[in-house]
């Protein structure tokens, strides 16, 4: 499903020299698999997810999603692939504040291959327990409800891979547990692979498959310096 090979990314430092942030020799995730990456703040794990999602262009290496080489593609093709194959759940949810709950999900779908399917968007929102909040704006929802909108938006396009970046970081313990269970359950239902990054041991402990990002990322030492 996901194959990462010799992936590296660096950014210019204050003195102009390139600072390596991500350097991953090999990383794989099978279809439908759910894996948690443990990583401290500033360890480069968000950059790693951005590289997988094609939001950032890698300096070198390869990311293959469902057999398609993401890193070899031009930006428009990467955008298309992201819309077709990936769902992304952000720590800060990144909901569009001027759009209703239903519109947030529809917009997420509209860039994908199936387009904005209103009935499906409603069904997904029903599934995450927000069928009665379709016309609400994000600011009118609780934090937990906003997270559920983000989950619905990420999964509405029936992605093959869901990337979740500290998805429970803004929630209290009870809501975090509920949100995590929901994400895993819906991914399982749709057969989507899940790659979640977190520093929360409570979250990481729920996953049978766990890896330490510091061990995976050969540039981790560089980042900390």
């Amino acid at each position, binding site marked *: 499903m996901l194959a990462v090979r010799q992936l590296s990314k660096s950014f210019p430092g204050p003195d102009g020299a390139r600072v390596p942030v991500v350097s991953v020799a090999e990383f794989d995730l099978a279809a439908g698999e759910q894996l948690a990456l443990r*990583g401290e*703040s*500033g*360890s*480069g*794990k*968000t*950059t790693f997810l*951005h590289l997988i*999602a094609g*939001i*950032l262009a890698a300096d070198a290496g390869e990311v293959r999603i469902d057999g398609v080489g993401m890193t070899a593609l031009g*930006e*428009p093709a990467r*955008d*298309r692939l*992201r*819309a*077709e194959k990936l769902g*992304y759940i*952000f*720590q*800060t949810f*990144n*909901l*569009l*504040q*001027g*759009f209703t709950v239903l*519109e947030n999900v*529809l*917009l*997420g779908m*509209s*860039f*994908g291959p199936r387009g*904005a399917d209103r009935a499906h968007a409603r069904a997904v929102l029903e599934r995450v327990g927000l069928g009665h909040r379709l016309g609400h704006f994000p600011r009118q929802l609780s934090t937990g409800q906003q997270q559920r909108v983000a989950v619905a*938006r990420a999964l509405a396009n029936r992605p093959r891979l869901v990337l979740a*970046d*500290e998805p429970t970081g803004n929630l209290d313990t009870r809501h975090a547990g509920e949100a995590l269970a929901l994400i895993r359950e819906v991914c399982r239902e749709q057969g989507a692979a899940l790659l979640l*990054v977190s*520093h929360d041991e409570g979250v990481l402990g729920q996953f049978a498959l766990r890896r330490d990002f510091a061990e995976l990322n050969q540039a981790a030492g560089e980042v900390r310096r």
Partner: protein
Amino acid sequence: MTLPLIVYRSLRQHALSTLITAGGIALAAGLLMTVWRVKVESQAAFTQTSAGFDAVLGARGAKLQLVLNAIFHLEASPGNVAAADAEAIRRHPMVKTAIPIAVGDNLRGFRLVGTVPDLFTGVEYAPGRKYAIEAGGRLFAADQREAVAGSFAAQRLGLRVGSVFRPFHGLNFDPKAEHAEEFTVTGILAPTNTPADRVIWLPLRGIQTMAGHDPKAATDVSAVLLQLRTPTAGFMLDMLYNKQGNRLTFAFPVGAIIAELFGKISWFDRVLELVAYLVALVAAGSVLASIYNSMSARQRDLAILRALGARRRTVFGAVLAEATVIGAVGALAGLAAHFALYAGVAGLIRAQTGVVLTPWAFHAVLVLCPLAMTALCALGGIVPAVKAYRTPVAETIAPVS
């Protein structure tokens, strides 16, 4: 659905700045269209207004003053034409019709013009159109103190058949200059949409013999309105009166003389046009500034859209479409502003000159100006659209962990 939804929501999110910007564009477009139409259509209306006459014979002076006085009932008369001269031109073989007029009095600011009944019975003021008296009225008798009121003057002064009034001396209203004679309104002219609507018509003798007027000039007229038998007659009479003679002025052709007036004030048109163009540019600039200033607030939304799979060209198109929609809404509102402005200006021109401009008539500028304003606003949207295009997704959407 995506692009319209993004544009609609963005406009709603920034409703106040959208309304203010669209309002500015509406005023600019309205002003531009009004200036253009008033210029073009008033020039056409004035140059086509001849009251059915080819030429005017008057005292020695400027042709323009003579035409403005005799046809448009504006300006002062350049002087008098002796009865013998009026009679001579009437009998001239090249003249088909000669209608003498006498001016010099008013009724509360509206001009009294003395003339002969032939003006109303024998002259077409426009092709196929003759003067008509509204039902219940009749034409004045040439030897009575009677009057026929133009429709606009009657409406403004509240005159109706049977109304009695006393004229005031001079062309400008002075309450102390009231004449002793009383005139009775015998009819109201049906609207002609010409300067005749602003006039109260009296028998020629009524003006000539009014107490206080110079008895030596009791048979003089202010001008003679002429219909010629052939166009070449105009050139021959021009030679006779203007080049060989030195007592009278022969103004021919009427339309060309008025066109000269517009030629003289064309610099003013250009200034107005320039102002209107600058206002349009400022309006387009305001679209640019309004959207550009809101870009920092909306960059996060654009980055989220990009992270969801929107392409750069989609967010570029969304911002450009937003600018275009603001321009189009403003331009459409500008049409409404234009019609309101134009109706006001047309009313003013009609009140001052009797020349009628029709606000609802179609003019190409009513299509071209809104299109041009919309295009200009779209152009103004390019700069913020480029900024949207360049939005760095990763840095904008999430803190790096």
